[in-house]
């Protein structure tokens, strides 16, 4: 995929209707073909910024652009052909099957009024297969575990077939095994040239799985760049107000909080 599929946010500012200024001034780059982590303490504006990137919210100031094309001004359908969003959790009310749910990812590219056709079904099945969950196709989403549901939502985003994938804490509610599966899947997707942005809480997951990181605090960007060079003791201590130890295990960098 060409380099002009880089996602970029410039001077974004977003205030909720209740007056909270969640994003003060955000400028960040999210290059294609990489996983970029959006990292920061609770309340730093990660989710709000992710929703601005996804087009759920429109920044009051500043712009979000993809390869130089401004996204905020696009109508929802064209926008949805470029960016896909995976919410932190989706609570299904109605017992749609996994197949029907993944098929919803085809909505932006539907031509007619009556919904998806056979080709869309094939694409949806492929998407679920690439998420490693093809056996779930006929199950009801209401009977899945949290991890399976997360896989289904990611499969829906894959079926949407967009150059940009935005995920809100994709591994927050998952056990170690599923966490690893999801990161491996995202890594494989990044290798196909997609731009992947995920908000992450755990500094270790950032170190292990995301080459790039954008660190947020107080609704603005504290620092951004290569995760392994950025994550030093000073940064983490200033973010969390407590010391951290960066060490290595089996050749992998590990961050341990210091309890005093």
């Amino acid at each position: 995929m060409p380099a002009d599929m880089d996602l970029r946010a410039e001077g974004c500012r977003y205030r909720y209707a209740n007056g909270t200024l969640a994003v003060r001034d955000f400028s960040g780059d999210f290059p294609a073909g990489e996983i970029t982590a959006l990292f920061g303490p609770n309340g730093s504006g990660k989710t709000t910024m992710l929703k601005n990137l996804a087009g759920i919210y429109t920044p009051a100031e500043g712009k979000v652009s993809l390869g130089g094309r401004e996204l905020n001004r696009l109508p929802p359908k064209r926008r949805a052909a470029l960016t896909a969003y995976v919410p932190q959790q989706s609570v299904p009310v109605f017992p749609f099957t996994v197949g029907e749910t993944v098929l919803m990812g085809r909505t932006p590219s539907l031509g007619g009024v009556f919904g998806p056709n056979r080709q869309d079904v094939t694409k949806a099945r492929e998407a679920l297969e690439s998420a490693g969950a093809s056996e779930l196709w006929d199950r009801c989403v209401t009977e899945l575990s949290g991890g399976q549901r997360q896989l289904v939502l990611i499969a829906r985003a894959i079926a949407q077939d967009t150059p940009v994938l935005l995920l809100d804490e994709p591994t927050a509610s998952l056990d170690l095994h599923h966490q690893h599966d999801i990161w491996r899947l995202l890594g494989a997707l990044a290798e196909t040239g997609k731009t992947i942005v995920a908000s992450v809480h755990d500094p270790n997951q950032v170190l292990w799985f995301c080459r790039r990181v954008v660190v947020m605090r107080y609704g603005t960007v504290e620092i951004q760049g290569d995760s392994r060079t950025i994550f030093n003791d000073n940064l983490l201590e200033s973010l969390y107000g407590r010391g951290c130890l960066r060490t290595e295990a089996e050749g992998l960098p590990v961050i341990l909080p210091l309890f005093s």
Partner: protein
Amino acid sequence: MKRSRPLIFAVLGGLVLLVCLAALVSGAYRVPAGEVFRLLFFPLSPGSGSAATVVLDIRLPRLFTALLVGLGLSVSGTVFQGLFRNPLVEPYILGVSSGAAFGAALSIVLSAAVFPLHLTSFACGMGAMALALLAAGRRGTLPIVNLILAGVVINSLFSAGLSFLKLTAGARELRELTFWLMGGLYVADRHTAGLLAVQVLPAALVIWSQGWKLNVLSAGEEEALTLGLRVKFLRGLLMILAAYVTSLCVAAVGIVAWVGLMMPHIARMLIGPDHRVLIPASALLGAGFLTLCDTLARTVTGGEIPVSIITAFLGAPYLLFLIRTNRRVGFAG
């Protein structure tokens, strides 16, 4: 659990046809099935007489009215439940029923000349919905919680108005109003059926054509937005269409309880939540169920029972039975 959808539709369609036949055959004046067929398919053949009057002029318009009102309420209920992501929602949620009831009271209690019954009731139903939408809107958004609250408020406002009109009403008007409020298809004639047909059917077709989008909307507002839907426009369109259909039905035959809440539920249990098949299934169920109830309403006793009494007596226990026996319930949580 996989069930054959064509089979479900075939069975539903067959049942509706049977109920229709029963509706035409039964009543104070019995007309044998053979005679009904002859009248329907060869209406110009000789020797019809009073049977022709009963079947073609009285029962047939009433049958069509029951079918259309049942279909309309059930489809609107399906739409509202999907949009509000809540299976306990009924088509009267936005204040349509109390608005329409207030309109009917204006006509019955004050003056039918100034306030023609159907028109006033329809206008007040739609007016109530418009007020609810206005009250719920906030900076160009339309949060669901606000809508439900606004519906409650509008409902109680119009109910208060209705109570006031009842206070001022005489005994005869009060009786008439009470009967109207419980719903009844005894008012149905060719005019009613025709008016309903040309409005309810096209609206239901437009709603059905948005079935897939309704699926996506029922997954939640933010997700629908990121999947490329014009959420505000679609939700507004579907809500207004559904409230329009509900207002038409209420204005035509009064407030029929249960159909709009229960039939979508049962349809969802039968065929799943995909609105592309759920809407037609729920339409068939609603049409058949109300026709059955209306036929019972005018045949079980010598007189005429308000149809809502029958819909509740038949519907509530059946829904309870389904909830307790069906493993694939129509919703989670």
